[in-house]
């Protein structure tokens, strides 16, 4: 559903079917829409049987990395005598991404059900939903839904009369992009500074409070009940890209576009048709110029490259970028790429946890150089420095924040070098249309 727009006939609303419908927020309303059937069924299955179904469905992490969910769950050794934890990553902070916010504020019970199934499948009795601190409304909606589910005996001790215990709690963040990184999220939950941890040990071995832990994105967990209800084959079959990428995916579309919003399409959908048909194309009198299609951490592509993309994990990679979180940022011909990329670099400089030198210094330095170029005071050597910097910022730090700063910037310079050179030469770029900001 193209929330806030009406659903487009070419969308496949699975997760977004009830966006905009306040009744779906309540427990009764959710049950009337088929809610909690999957959990009732799951609680009477062997946890490994649930993991097998999720594995067979081909569901991959929707937070950005695309790791197979069933495989991740299978790393949790049931019956090892240790406490297990599930963390739901609802720290949605990746620029361009606003899908989890809609899942939480319209269909909170979908996430609760997904968390409960996930917790049971990995042998956890406690799940924490870590929601970014700015999301007051989603937090309030989730808290209310959790209270309803707890009062109805759906979660808590003896969940749904199954004899199993599943507690789910909301944990509110306090403003730090980096806490969306799974190990930083766990540190934050433990009451520490949100610095990412060195891996290994991986969370499935030593995670939250030093115990085996699985971290899943909101959208991933919300998809699980649908898979249990309809079967792994159904989930695979709806995709045009089966078996590598299966199911449907929410794409958040923003920037210079006629109809920004969330759209849910099957994997393998044509990106060209998606952009021009579903999203309404560019604003009147404008042309699309560039995109960052997976949240701001992925490489920048030109509109020509975008038009060739098949929307699945592999399809984006083939055109030199990534599906990421599905946050599609669109720049039209009135935008200055140097200015936009300088702003993106500033984001990462602000959000660096400052643990690793390459990131702390690199993001700040890159921002300084880009802002100098935008101010008309750059040199050709500056561009070379950015490339060198990016190289020393990639693959050399504890987490990938540093890599994420270099990816859109370096690809952006490579593809729109003329705009940078024009600023360096001291005149406006001819590729920026009249009226550009």
């Amino acid at each position, binding site marked *: 559903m193209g929330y806030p727009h009406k659903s487009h006939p070419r969308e496949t609303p699975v997760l977004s079917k009830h966006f905009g419908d306040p009744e779906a927020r309540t427990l009764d309303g959710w049950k009337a829409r088929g809610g909690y059937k999957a959990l009732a069924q799951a609680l009477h299955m062997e946890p490994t049987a649930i993991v097998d179904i999720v594995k067979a469905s081909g569901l991959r992490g929707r937070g950005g990395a695309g790791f197979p969910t069933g495989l991740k769950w299978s790393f949790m050794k049931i019956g090892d005598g240790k406490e297990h934890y599930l963390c739901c990553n609802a720290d949605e902070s990746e*620029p361009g*991404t606003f899908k989890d916010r809609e899942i939480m504020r319209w269909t909170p019970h979908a996430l609760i059900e997904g968390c409960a199934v996930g917790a049971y499948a990995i042998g956890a009795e406690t799940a924490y939903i870590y929601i970014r601190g700015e*999301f007051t409304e989603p937090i309030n909606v989730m808290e209310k839904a959790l209270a309803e589910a707890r009062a109805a005996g759906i979660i808590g001790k003896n969940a749904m009369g199954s004899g199993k215990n599943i507690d789910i709690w909301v*944990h509110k963040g306090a403003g730090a992009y980096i806490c969306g990184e799974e190990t930083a999220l766990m540190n934050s939950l433990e*009451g520490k500074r949100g610095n990412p941890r060195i891996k290994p040990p991986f969370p499935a071995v030593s995670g939250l409070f030093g115990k085996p832990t699985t971290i899943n994105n909101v959208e991933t967990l919300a998809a699980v009940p649908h898979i249990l209800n309809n079967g792994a084959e159904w989930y695979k079959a709806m995709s045009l890209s089966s078996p590598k990428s299966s199911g449907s995916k929410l794409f958040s579309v923003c920037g210079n576009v006629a109809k920004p919003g969330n759209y849910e399409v099957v994997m393998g959908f044509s990106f060209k048709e998606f952009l021009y048909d579903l999203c309404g194309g560019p604003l009147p009198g404008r042309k699309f110029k560039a995109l960052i299609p997976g949240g701001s951490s992925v490489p920048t592509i030109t509109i020509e490259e975008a038009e060739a993309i098949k929307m699945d994990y592999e399809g984006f990679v083939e055109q030199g970028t990534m599906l990421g979180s599905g946050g599609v940022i669109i720049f039209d011909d009135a935008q200055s790429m140097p200015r936009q990329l300088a702003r993106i670099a500033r984001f990462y400089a602000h959000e660096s946890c400052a643990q690793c030198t390459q990131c702390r210094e690199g993001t700040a330095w890159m921002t300084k150089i880009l802002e100098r170029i935008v101010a008309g005071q750059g040199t050709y050597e500056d561009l070379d420095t950015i490339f060198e910097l990016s190289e020393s910022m990639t693959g050399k730090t504890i987490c990938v924040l540093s890599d994420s700063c270099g990816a859109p910037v370096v690809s952006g310079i490579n593809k729109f070098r003329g705009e940078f050179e024009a600023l360096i030469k001291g005149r406006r770029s001819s590729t920026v249309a009249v009226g550009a900001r």
Partner: protein
Amino acid sequence: MSHGPSAPAQAHGGAHAHHVPYVPVFTDGSARLKELKDIISRYPDKRAALLPALWMVQQERGWISEDAMREVGDQLGCTAAYVKGVVTFYTMYHQHPVGKHFIQVCTTSPCLCAGADDVVKAFLEHTGCKELGLTSPDGKYTVIEVECLGACGFATPVQINEDYVESVTPEKVPGILAGLK
């Protein structure tokens, strides 16, 4: 993920703020202490209640002073220095008093495309805040830029205290301010 107010707000004055005796939040028999204990029971380690405890202090006192850090540390078995380390990591905790209406304008890329910098200018102009991070002379407003609020399809989102206002344009700013209580 705000670019927090870096200096003590003008209207309150840094020195003045330190002379006001701190009133503890988690006093014996208080609702906040009960709430904190309830939250502690959700975790195997009570330090996990640190972020929630800090939120409670900020809701009660408007900001988190060094005295508050000591109080929270005492409740959760950690030093005031440890608490300060955590407070300073997260941008949403105020380390100084701020205006009654704390206004955060998202200016990250998608919002920049939609003209967020003009929204910032409009807020500064209509609130009387001289610059980002400073509080207006009447103590009512503090305006800052914030990194991605996660509502990019509704550019430009602005967070005022706890609530989002979506699709803000410079023209809407006077009306939004007039509607604040």
